[in-house]
């Protein structure tokens, strides 16, 4: 069964450093997402991406964040200057639906980011 993969599984960084979280969505999917989940809290939407551009973003997704699909398989989330409050689990998801009638998102296993 195809699945979304994410690397690394755990990233530890110093405050102010840049981090890049990587995701490989399911190969025939067209819609890509990043979410984060602070420990013990709900899943929070960050950004959706379609046709090589951002479709929607939340208020969390400020100028410190960027996303990119550098090739045909990877989807990355960059945090330019990490803060302590960026410590969370980051999930990537993908779907093949065009959004007009709902659809299933497939989530990766997550990257746990710890900012010291």
């Amino acid at each position, binding site marked *: 069964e195809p699945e*979304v993969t994410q690397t690394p599984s755990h990233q530890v960084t110093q405050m102010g450093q840049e981090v890049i979280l990587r995701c490989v969505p399911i190969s025939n999917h067209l*819609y890509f*997402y990043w*979410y984060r989940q602070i420990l013990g809290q*709900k*899943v*929070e*939407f960050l950004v*959706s991406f*379609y046709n090589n551009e951002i*479709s*929607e973003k*939340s208020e969390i997704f400020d100028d410190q964040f960027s996303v990119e699909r550098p090739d045909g398989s990877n989807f990355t989330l960059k945090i330019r200057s990490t803060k302590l409050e960026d410590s969370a*689990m980051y*999930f990537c*998801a993908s*779907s093949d*639906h*065009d*959004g*007009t*009638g*709902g*659809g*299933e*998102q*497939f*989530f*990766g*296993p*997550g990257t*746990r980011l710890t900012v010291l």
Partner: protein
Amino acid sequence: LAKTTQPISMDSYEGQEVNITCSHNNIATNDYITWYQQFPSQGPRFIIQGYKTKVTNEVASLFIPADRKSSTLSLPRVSLSDTAVYYCLVGISTGGFKTIFGAGTRLFVKA
């Protein structure tokens, strides 16, 4: 996107049927209702989606009344492994754009 309200937590015993109800009073005409399950330290996993009446798959059923202002996820004969957080989402964007998760319902299944 329609706001959803679910119970914060529920307890059940193995072998019982569990029904989790979600309220979405301001659901829009084109909105679908989707449920996800999340285990600790894992990403959410799609369970079921519906628009109206009843939908059933191999793991759950989804009951949606005619006014669509609420929906009920039904898990038949739960086991210990069904202990998880269950999220109800409403919106056409569950397929393509912005997806808003609520606080979810934490289900505890006891032996």
